[in-house]
């Protein structure tokens, strides 16, 4: 009964989304306040109905109702509760329901918190948001219905893919979807602004927090996925340049560009049409990601639902929304007149450079991702584009970005002075180069990667510190420190996010340059050296878990004669899904991770054992956490909490 009500609620939400699309749009066109007023209750009702529907599906999973086809295919009574719940979105149909739930959540938030938006803009934003909803409700109801019943309910289910039974992966999809779908808000604002023919500072002040929130969630989602790959796949890889990873990375890059260009729109009323284009593209890349994951046109290790029929429908949705928005953009962009002027050396110019680098790097990822498809269709060549291409073609952009970032973020608005911006960076550049040289001297490998990572990391983090310090004005150190703590949160957010970028760059370079790997056959009782550590294999046992059996090794790690700790890597087997998984054991540390994996028993006795020493591995995700934290801090800025759009657009005193 609950299931049927959930199904019914979903259909009702579909109907309401159609109303939300049509009535307010016409109302805004005719300037009819009653018709425009339909948008808010519709958005809220739509959210409540989808929430009920999602709750009903979750209930079916929690109670293991195997009369539901989806529950049968993805759940099992022995599964721990948390994975029964995460099983709701661990499959195609359920994840689409989560997608529309978040879409409706963003729509309802815009309705609730959008009280001070101009009425017509709000009606149009909600109408566009409703239109996206219509497309995805139709997709779910006609091709991917999660509420289908089985005529004869089986006794037990087929279990969730064991790899998804993991805390990292349980929360990876919701965060990613909050990011992907959050960008729909920026899209709706962009399309609404194009229909209005007006983009001003107030518009940017509205778009920026939504984009920032989406970007923060995307950052967390990508970091969770990468962290999961690191500890779960058994050799510590954290990024594979797989089409599906790229699909999440492209909107992240564009959203990062949009965050920065929207600042220029907000503060200086320039780069308007460019920002609108970015807002459209950001969500376009989200839709492209959905297409890549669910169509199976690109072979990916993440293949989700490889159903061409569903793929074609998503392609149609993509074509309609992206094509429609871009057509509208072509027709109306010229109406968006930018007012602000700035000289060639200025913060605005630096942000233009930031946007150029981010947008082109996204283009590199894009062409690398779709090239196998294009080459096969147009040139009849079956080929692959893998990590070596992306490392060669993408990395230079990030290096360039890191080099210009500190100076650009110090430059003054409107008219900057390059030598004045470089001056506070001189000590940091000396420190960066000195530490880089030190790293080069003490490393055993002859690689430039590690030292370059050190230099860029120190340079970017130092730039944020220098920026904060400059913002503190003049006077005694105590007075300046006092002023730093009272700086607006947006400034702190900026500093944290930029530092995070520096930390991540350093972590990636250090880990890739200085990793040690050791693969060998070890017998119980063996002890061997890897780098400055030694390892011993003490025992190998068979243990039974809740829904799996496992081969567990007891290992000790030593440094000289001092024991650092015990490690117990596992090799699990899930009987229901008939799948083995590797559970590496990792001793996390600030300076290095020690990563051990137990393999199969060998014919001549002993086990295959792999040991990795991964320097500064945690800095990669530490940097991502800093970036996300920076986003949250910036979101809590006073200027955004207190009636953003109520404030009049700033008078452009300087531009007279």
């Amino acid at each position, binding site marked *: 009964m609950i299931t049927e009500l959930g199904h019914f609620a979903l259909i009702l939400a579909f109907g309401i989304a159609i109303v939300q699309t049509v009535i307010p749009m016409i109302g805004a066109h005719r300037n009819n306040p009653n018709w425009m007023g339909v948008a808010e209750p519709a958005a809220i009702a739509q959210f409540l109905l989808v929430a009920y529907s999602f709750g009903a599906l979750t209930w079916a999973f929690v109670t293991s109702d195997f009369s539901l086809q989806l529950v049968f295919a993805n759940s099992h009574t022995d599964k721990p509760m948390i994975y029964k719940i995460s099983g709701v979105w661990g499959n195609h149909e359920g994840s689409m329901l989560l997608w529309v739930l978040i879409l409706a959540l963003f729509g309802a938030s815009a309705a609730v918190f959008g009280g001070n938006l101009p009425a017509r803009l709000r009606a149009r934003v909600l109408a566009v948001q409703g239109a996206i909803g219509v497309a995805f409700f139709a997709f779910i109801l006609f091709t991917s219905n999660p509420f289908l019943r089985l005529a004869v309910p089986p006794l037990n289910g087929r279990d969730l893919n064991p790899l998804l039974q993991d805390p990292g992966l349980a929360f990876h999809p919701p965060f990613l979807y909050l990011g992907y779908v959050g960008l729909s808000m920026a899209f709706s604002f962009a399309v609404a602004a194009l229909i209005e023919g007006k983009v001003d500072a107030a518009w940017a002040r509205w778009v920026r927090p939504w984009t920032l929130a989406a970007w923060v969630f995307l950052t967390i989602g990508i970091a969770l996925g990468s962290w999961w790959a690191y500890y779960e796949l058994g050799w510590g890889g954290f990024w594979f340049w797989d089409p599906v990873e790229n699909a999440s990375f492209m909107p992240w890059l564009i959203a990062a560009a949009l965050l920065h260009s929207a600042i220029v729109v907000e503060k200086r009323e320039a780069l308007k049409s460019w920002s609108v284009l970015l807002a459209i593209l950001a969500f376009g890349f989200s839709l492209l990601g959905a297409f890549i994951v669910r169509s199976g046109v690109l072979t990916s290790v993440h*293949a989700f639902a490889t159903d061409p029929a569903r793929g074609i429908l998503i392609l149609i949705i993509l074509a309609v929304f992206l094509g429609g928005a871009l057509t509208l953009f072509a027709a109306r962009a010229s109406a968006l007149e930018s007012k602000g002027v700035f000289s060639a050396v200025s913060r605005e110019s630096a942000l233009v450079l930031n946007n*150029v680098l981010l947008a082109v790097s996204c283009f590199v990822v894009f062409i690398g991702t779709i090239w196998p498809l294009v080459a096969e269709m147009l040139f009849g*060549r079956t080929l692959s584009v893998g990590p070596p291409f992306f490392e060669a*073609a993408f990395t230079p952009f990030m290096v360039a970005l890191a080099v210009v970032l500190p100076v650009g973020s110090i430059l003054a608005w409107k008219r900057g002075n390059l030598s004045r911006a470089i001056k506070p960076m001189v000590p940091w550049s000396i420190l960066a180069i000195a530490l880089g040289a030190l790293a080069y001297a003490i490393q055993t490998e002859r690689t430039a990667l590690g030292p370059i990572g050190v230099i860029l990391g120190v340079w970017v983090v130092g730039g944020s510190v220098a920026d904060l310090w400059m913002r503190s004005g003049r006077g005694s150190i105590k007075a300046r420190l006092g002023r730093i703590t009272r700086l607006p949160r947006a400034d702190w957010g900026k500093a944290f996010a930029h530092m995070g970028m520096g930390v991540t760059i350093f972590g990636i370079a250090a880990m890739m340059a200085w990793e040690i790997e050791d693969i060998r056959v070890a017998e119980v009782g063996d002890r061997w050296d890897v780098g400055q550590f030694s390892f011993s294999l003490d025992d190998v046992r068979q243990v039974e878990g809740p829904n799996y059996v496992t081969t567990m090794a007891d290992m000790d790690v030593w440094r000289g004669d001092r024991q650092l700790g015990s490690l117990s890597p596992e090799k699990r087997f899930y009987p229901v899904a008939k799948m083995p998984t590797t559970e590496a054991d990792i001793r996390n540390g600030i300076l290095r991770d020690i990563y051990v994996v137990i393999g199969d028993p060998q014919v001549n006795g002993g086990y295959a054992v792999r040991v990795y020493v991964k320097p500064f591995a945690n800095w990669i995700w530490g940097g991502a956490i800093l970036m996300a934290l920076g986003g949250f801090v910036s979101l809590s800025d006073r200027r955004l909490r207190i009636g953003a759009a109520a404030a009049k657009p700033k008078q452009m005193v300087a531009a007279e």
Partner: protein
Amino acid sequence: MKRLVLMLCLLAAPVFAVEPDEILDDPVLEARVRELSQGLRCPVCQNESIDESHAPVAQELRVVLRERLVAGDTDAQVIDYMVFRYGEYVLLRPNARGANLILWLAAPLMLLMALGVGWVTIRRKSDVATPLSADEEAALEEILKQ
């Protein structure tokens, strides 16, 4: 989810990527093998190099790679050999021949274009910004005199 598809490759007997018994005694040669095998794609898996893959065919390829290198092949020769046997599909780093030039040149060309557009935008903005009109000059002169 990586493993999900991976498992389709082998189903029955899960083995590790690089097995201890495959490793060559000569560390220099072994390092070359690892470098090369990270650039070769496992033909039956979804987007994995033979270095990471657990599939039996990936293991065969790793063994062949080692045999060729021990026999004295250069890196280029062994890559050509692999491409000859399995097609350019196995190259994770696509070559820069024919249509692939588009792929390799897309990024630099796009960057030049974007920098050009960016520069024009900035110049247009600053042209408006810098000069004062004659009237304004005069007005400024007036103000400064007072």
